[in-house]
């Protein structure tokens, strides 16, 4: 069970209240009508799935119903930081 800090409610809550919405910082193609199938497929289907530091989006489903980002280590499950949508992570993978 993860203990997750919601940056909107400003307190720690249990994982049961949240839903993980996958990798964060995926930019939608700016001109979807003119991007190639490869670009569109990359955007829709392909994710990094790293071992180690990952930035992911979480949704506080039963609480404030806001999305926010979490930097988490996929090996240890340790949450390194929590930051709001639109902000940039401070903890990033090396290399």
């Amino acid at each position, binding site marked *: 069970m993860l203990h997750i800090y919601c940056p*909107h*409610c*400003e*307190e720690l*809550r*249990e994982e*049961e*209240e949240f839903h993980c919405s996958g990798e964060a910082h995926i930019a939608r193609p700016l001109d979807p009508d003119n991007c190639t199938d490869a670009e569109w497929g990359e955007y829709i289907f392909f994710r990094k799935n790293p071992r180690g530091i990952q930035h992911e989006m979480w949704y506080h489903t*039963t*609480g*404030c*119903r*806001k999305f926010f980002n979490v930097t988490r280590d996929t090996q240890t499950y340790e949450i390194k930081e929590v930051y*709001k*949508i*639109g902000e940039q992570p401070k903890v990033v993978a090396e290399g």
Partner: protein
Amino acid sequence: MSEAIAPEKEVTNVAVMNQLPSGAIRAESPLHHAELDKLAARNPRGGGVILRELKLLGHLTLRGSQDNASFMAGCAEVLGVALPTKPLTSVDNGSVSVRWLSPDEWLAVVPMDQAFEIERSLRAAIEGHFQVVNGSGGQTIIELSGPNAVDVLKKSTILDLHPSQFPVGKVAGSVFAKASALVRRSGEDTWELVVRRSFADYIWLWLQDASREYGLVVKA
């Protein structure tokens, strides 16, 4: 990504209607079928948990940016209380209570017969980008009080209900009995649950079961 949407000067036409039934149409709360008034009339001995439905109140969901001064001032003026900006807090002046739902969303609970007038006044008073939705028919409030009310809640939700973590006035949405509820501590031993209409019967059944060991007293 998060830049504010420019305030619109023109007020768009929004279909508003008075949801309060009049005349021969009878208003039924989500727990109407449970006949709490009849249960209250034949209450047995005392008990550690007192349950009451705060029924048929006006529930207005207000959305707007805290940066929109017109929104904040308009809500304060019309409701008589300022919107709480501190997360997980609420304000209550006796007839109107406002619960913080998220940084840009509040639930105002007002007397049902004033809900339509308040909604119209809000629309007239506020400029810019905002939303007022009357969700009165979609949810209800169940009040639990008594010395064992907190024990019933502990069985039902994962929230930390210790007074140091959940002081009087605090509001938190969470999972509740495998459904969800907005929990507010309205007094030392008094709690209010805002539950959805479709879950009201299930939560009523759950609360009866969970409070059986302490003794449940129903109040009309």
